């Protein structure tokens, strides 16, 4: 048995596990602080959010450790199946989903609610890794790009239909593993350009944008007036960009429902809603800023204690950290994440198997998107996009899906010497 255990846990990167535990502990502590009410503190309450979170953490840890007991090869073998199941769940949720906060993201199973979009992430990561490792495409041809895009876009679009824009956006993280595997850097730039133009289309009148685009194009042509091919490309790109602007406008007014439009407008700060998302961000920034250098101390945050930040234990948990632990605490948390992300990339690079490497990159980049979008949202540098802070935000689905995501990679990593 001892030997058996050694075999299962052999070569596991315990540093990552420690960071995982540290982040979960930070999460639990701050959820406790967010829920804490000085008038009603009567011992430990398992029915409360922090009580439930403790259960999620413990079961999550058990779940993670049991994943280490699996044979790593199974994930490769079952990747299409797991992906298929998550797609089916995403379709089911559209019909039986419990409507929570304006979107149908949850499947009720007894008293427990399952959020398929959380699990779709590792399903997609697995299938993408399987595809890349099997066919070894270098993404220089349209076909391989198309297949990879299809794998990512299928769950993304289904999640968009719920509609849960935040969770869908996270799937864009898969561009980075593909980039690592050979996808041209232009795709990242084009994509960045599309996001910038999309946002700009709402904030700046279209004709000004057209003027700007034309000017940039003209300047570029002037600078390269000897290179005919480049000139043609530039004209082409400029025209496409202008066309895209109109497409966005048309799609926005004709395709989207009014409530969806309103969410986007809120997101882009075109609309202020003192009771809704706008209020959240203002209060969140006040709470974080008031923490100053060292924070007000555990359970001492007035904004936290007196409930000024809505959804504080879930999407806005970072405001608790900011208020009670200050810049110091924020730096520690961001430091832990960055350490974890850099380590995951390093671990991925040491894999002999392409499957493990692609999967590792996927895990790191999904985590990165979550951390960046969530913290960025709480401090007002990114519009309100409701996605959780990995391992820290309250919620079982989220915690378990990150646990599964991470521990599958740890299992793959522990097998790095073998062939999968």
């Amino acid at each position: 048995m001892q030997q058996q255990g050694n075999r299962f846990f052999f070569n596991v990167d315990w540093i990552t596990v420690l960071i995982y535990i540290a982040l979960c502990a930070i999460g639990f502590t701050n959820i406790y602080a967010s829920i804490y009410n000085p008038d009603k503190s009567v011992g430990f309450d398992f029915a409360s959010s922090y009580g439930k979170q403790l259960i999620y953490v413990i079961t999550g840890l058990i779940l993670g450790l049991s994943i280490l007991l699996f044979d790593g090869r199974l994930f490769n073998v079952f990747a299409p199946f797991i992906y298929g199941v998550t797609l089916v769940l995403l379709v089911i949720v559209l019909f039986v989903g419990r409507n929570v906060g304006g979107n149908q993201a949850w499947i009720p199973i007894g008293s427990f609610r399952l959020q398929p979009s959380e699990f779709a992430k590792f399903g997609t990561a697995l299938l993408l890794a399987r595809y890349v490792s099997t066919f070894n495409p270098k993404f220089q041809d349209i076909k391989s790009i198309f297949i990879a895009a299809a794998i990512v876009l299928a769950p993304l679009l289904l999640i968009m239909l719920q509609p849960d824009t935040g969770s869908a956006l996270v799937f864009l993280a898969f561009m980075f593993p593909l980039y690592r595997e050979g996808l041209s850097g232009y795709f990242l730039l084009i994509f960045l350009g599309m996001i910038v133009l999309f946002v700009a289309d709402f904030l700046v009148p279209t004709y000004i944008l057209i003027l700007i685009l034309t000017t940039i194009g003209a300047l570029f042509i002037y600078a390269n007036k000897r290179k005919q091919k480049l000139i043609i490309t530039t004209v082409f790109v400029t025209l496409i960009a202008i066309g895209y602007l109109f497409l966005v406008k048309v799609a926005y007014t004709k395709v989207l429902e009014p409530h969806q439009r309103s969410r986007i407008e809120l997101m882009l700060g075109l609309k202020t809603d003192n009771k809704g998302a706008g209020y959240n961000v203002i209060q969140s920034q006040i709470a974080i800023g008031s923490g100053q250098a060292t924070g007000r101390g555990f359970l001492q945050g007035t904004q936290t204690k007196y409930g000024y930040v809505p959804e504080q234990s879930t999407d806005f948990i970072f405001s608790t950290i900011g208020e009670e632990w200050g810049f110091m605490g924020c730096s520690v948390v961001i430091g832990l994440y960055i350490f974890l992300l850099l380590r995951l990339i390093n671990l991925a690079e040491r894999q002999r198997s392409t499957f493990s490497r692609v999967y590792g990159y996927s895990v790191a980049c999904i985590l990165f998107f979550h951390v960046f979008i969530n913290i960025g949202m709480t401090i007002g540098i990114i519009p309100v996009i409701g996605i959780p802070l990995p391992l820290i935000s309250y919620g079982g689905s989220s915690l378990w899906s990150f646990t599964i995501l991470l521990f599958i990679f740890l299992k793959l990593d522990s097998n790095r010497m073998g062939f999968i």
Partner: protein
Amino acid sequence: MEQLFNRKYIIQGLFLVVAIILLAKLFYIQIVSDAAFVAAESNVLKKKFKYPARGAILDRNMKVIVQNEPVYDLMVIPNEVKSFDTLALANALEISFDEVRKNLKKAKAKSNYQSTPFSKQISVQSYARLQEIMYRFPGFSTQDRTIRHYPDSVAGQLFGYVKEVSQADIDKSEGYYRSGDYIGKSGLERSYEDVLRGEKGVVNTVYDARNTPQGSYANGKYDVNAVSGERLISGIDIDVQKLGEELMLNKVGAVVAIEPATGEIIALVSSPGYDPNILVGKGFGNNYMDFIVGNPYRPSLVRPIQGYYPPGSSFKPIDALIALQEGVVDPNTTFNCPGYYMAGNHKVKCEHVDGNISMRRGIARSCNTYFCHVFQNLITKNGMKNQRQTYQDWRDKVAKFGFGTKLDIDMPFERKGYFYNADHYDKIYGNRWGYTTVISQAIGQGEITATPLQIANAMAIIANRGYYIKPHLIKGMGDKKLVKKEYVTKNYVGVDAKYFEPVIDGMQDAVNSAWGTATLSRIPDIIMCGKTGTVQNPHGKNHSVFIGFAPRDNPKIAIAVIVENAGYGSTYAAPIASYMVEKYLKRAVTGARANQVEWMKGQNLLPPLIDPNKKPKLTKADSLSIKKTDSVKRVKDSLKIKSAVIKQSVSTKPVANKPAILNTKPETK
């Protein structure tokens, strides 16, 4: 392959860049800027102000003359209001259903989140009813406050009034006043605002996001208790003040009584007056329009310090004093009075044909001829060519008696009167003017005007034999009875004490001798020295004036009484003065004189109004043009005393002026 491996660094680099962006923004909002910290404090912290009781005011006999009464306001925080039984609230407050809605709307317009007055000064009954059903009206609360009460219902202009602060007051106060606070707007309430108002207290309470109180902030470390305003002890004798107002009933004019030794004002009557209680609380707006603005005799004019009157005969003793000091006459100098005085080819009339007359008798009989001679001697003493300079010297000496300057009484909006320098006459006449041009000033007429306060103060100077202390209403502030330094400082007028006795002899005779002008106002057992005056008024009947002090030795009270359009000084002003002096010195007017007091109270001497529905409206421009034409007229017939202008009738608007501020070091008196 090697190239693709390098993409790891691009991705890791991206992670690091993003982490740095996040940390930079965090560094800014957490460490560089304190805006969030301030916002967080204002999120949870609500300040509730506790209003201190305003300081009381006592009279010179330590009787309370200004005090506080508790009242209750119903306050509302509109966004905390749940749907409530409008009818029940309307019934409890004894107002209509619609009014409840209207008030709520008004409060909402003011502020949705702050406690705003819903119904002010609710009755005690309403308050009691509300206490029982308050729980049914979340968002509403009662706040107790005090308002002013003036037990004797007199001296409206003297006390002034307290009113809710205006936006201008808030802006000026550098953060002290907040909307809804009260401030002294006029009278003593204004000039002693800093002392009377006390210190506001504050209770800092922590509130959660649902606006429910969560207890005290930082264990009350930053809470401040309200400190009641300090009490003021005034020199006013409220009984004398009250008698004065009753005597002046249905008359227009002013009375100022001063304790000469201290400069304390014993009474300051402005008639018509009003009951200060009408300007307290709810009725303010209507009452102000009805009783103050609506009264054609303009009670808003505080006549003792703002009304302009020619000093008239009361000026003659000052002529005599300066002439004695200058040595241009001595007490035995006599002049001949044929019933007039010729200044060049102009005639100044005298009331009597006095024949050869001395100073003592000249004062007692108020002989115009005598004082025109004195004035002539004064202005020509350095030769006819130096009259301009000599006039200016004389003018400066008279100014030391307090004419032409403010006396800095502790009331706002005091005015200084007119008393011109030589250059004023230069402008009109060039260098071709002399004593004959300005001869009317010898008998206190012409261009010179003074406030009753200045005239009374001149009397205090004579009573003191040569000095005065700036007249003031408050003789002690707070428990330590602090007093401003300027109110204990003697101001000498530059006339030696020995020169006063001959003048005082004449004033004694005016009241107490058979040939005096105010013999009917003799007070049993008390020697009052005085001087009647009949100030000529081109706009109507002459003004009746009396000035005096009593007793002759060690005087306790100096007084000036002016009754507009009442005719001879001996008929009204002198008796009124004598009753008030007697009341002050003996605590009562006794014997047959008690009946005379009642008779006097019943006299209606209100001048007829040209149009009773329309009060005469004179703008500043009018007053200037009138002055000008008068001056020009005076060029032609400066000797016709008729030209005397009663400027008090054109001085409508008090000059905006800074109230007395306690900038000098208070000294224990």
